[in-house]
């Protein structure tokens, strides 16, 4: 009985998630025309390419920097919202969550227009402060900066909401006790808030690490990996190699390189989620 109720779910996961996952490993061992088995040939080919190592480095820089700033911004904003009187919180929370609600492909188009080389609204504004036109997407450093900025803009509200929920669950008595002991605001955050929120911070960060590491939309629309492949992530590079240049095995191989990092993050999340489940 119970088995039949879960059968559609099992079929869905088996056919469209598990099978493709194993199929991907099979594909990665074929040559470009997919007729010959080349073993680990694609992997050794990738190891010899500078672009591949650049993608590895850029993916790590992108994911770590973006997640760090998302977490930091989310934490700060959550505190400010939490400080407000309960009545006004809803309105602010509603406004600050808007970036998360807009489909990323649509909002990235707005950023692309804000970064436009000749009509950039940012450069127009900055010119009043005497700051020269910034090549937002044309220069390697600025392009990397821009994709991280857009990702932080998109992802910080998620952290804000998670932290806000966690902040509300910290009992007031703890802060009262800390205040009686003469703790200043920094000590209250360090000794009360952070330990109480440790678990939710860990889960949120790991979640975000997975999503950010596997990001596609923002980089694809903003830079398509340019200039000179310097902003490519695994996902966008796999798309370019596998779909646009139709070298499916090599593309499959590129995206498989995401697996180790995703797996480590997933194991930690599972541990933390189970811990949370047992606490509750």
């Amino acid at each position, binding site marked *: *009985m119970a088995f039949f109720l*879960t059968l559609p779910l099992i079929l869905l996961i088996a056919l469209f998630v598990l099978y*493709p996952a194993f199929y991907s490993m099979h594909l990665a061992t074929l040559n470009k025309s997919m007729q010959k088995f080349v073993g680990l040939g694609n992997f050794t080919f990738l190891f010899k390419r500078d672009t591949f190592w650049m993608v590895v480095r850029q993916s790590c820089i992108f994911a770590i920097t973006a997640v760090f700033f998302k977490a930091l911004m989310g934490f700060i*904003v959550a505190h400010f919202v939490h400080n407000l009187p309960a009545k006004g919180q809803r309105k602010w929370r509603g406004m600050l969550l*808007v970036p998360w609600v807009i489909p990323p492909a649509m909002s990235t188009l*707005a950023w692309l*227009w804000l970064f436009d080389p000749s*009509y950039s609204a940012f450069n127009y504004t900055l010119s009043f402060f005497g700051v020269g036109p910034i090549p937002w997407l044309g220069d390697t450093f600025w392009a990397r900066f821009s994709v991280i900025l857009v990702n932080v803009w998109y992802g910080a509200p998620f952290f804000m909401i998670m932290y806000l929920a966690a902040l509300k669950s910290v009992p007031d008595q703890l802060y009262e006790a800390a205040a009686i002991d003469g703790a200043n605001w920094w000590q209250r955050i360090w000794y009360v808030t952070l330990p109480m929120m440790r678990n939710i911070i860990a889960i949120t960060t790991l979640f975000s690490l997975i999503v950010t590491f596997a990001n596609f939309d923002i980089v694809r629309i903003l830079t398509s990996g340019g200039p000179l492949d310097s902003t490519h992530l695994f996902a966008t590079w796999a798309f370019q190699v596998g*779909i646009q240049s139709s070298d499916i095995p090599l593309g499959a191989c590129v995206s498989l390189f995401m697996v180790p990092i995703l797996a480590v993050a997933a194991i930690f999340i599972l541990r933390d989620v189970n811990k949370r489940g047992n606490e509750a």
Partner: protein
Amino acid sequence: MSTLAIDKGGPTRKIKYRSMSRDRTWALRWSYFFLVLFAIFSLIPPIYMLITSLKSSAEISAATNPWWVFHPTLANYVELLTSNQFLRFFWNSAIVSIVVVFVTMLISIPAAFALARMKFWGSTTLATGVFLTYLIPDSLLFIPLFKMLAVLQDLTGITLLNRWYVLLFIYPTLTVPFCTWIMIGYFASIPKELDEAALIDGASWLQTLTRIFIPVALPGLIAATIFAFTVSWAQFLYPLVFTTSIDQLVLPVGITTTLIKGDVFNWGQIMTGALLGAAPPLIIYAFLMDYYIAGLTAGATKG
């Protein structure tokens, strides 16, 4: 009496007590100040979309103050909303998202019911597996799925690539695991006494599900529905890979590929399209914000 006296003489170190209420007022002012900054940062792109969408191409290329509309016009909206191509994208997106929501619910509600209430062989493994599937990103599977569909198309002779309806089979892989996961949590929080009472009254499991579980867990159901809809509406990678003909595209892919013609960017129309594409999730969010947030925070909790 004597203890009171001792307490009064007690503290020897000098603590500077400031007025609590004055501290709070300043904390509040700083909070508002920074929140205004953050709100501006958050709202710049959508507001800029709106500003640009009200401009004519002539005004955009004249490079006047980008933050102000001097000659507001609805021409971009009229043009897009009367263009068959754009309406086609919108229609494709709407039909795909709505069907996916139904498919998702049909799969995940019974599965969550079984996983929350019936203990069977492998049920805990399956629940963990569902959660792990939720963590698998779309960018990991698009290449094998593409090849899989191509092979399947050759085997069966049914056209699968470049057809919007394959998205109906692919999108649930993104929505079902999360919806099942949060529905397990909502169902598990329903007291056992309720379904025992139903059982004693002679209800079948189907009646227990439709008369007890679904009504009681309705907030969770709404949160899951919103999640499934917004994920399907926003999905960009799969339709970009699986569909190419103009009449098969969904909105996000349609706007990014057709409105950008070579190096000619018609920014007024692109921003109008992007705003119209962002409208359905934004409208849902405006009315059902609390459910939206409940769904968002439920993902990281178990049971």
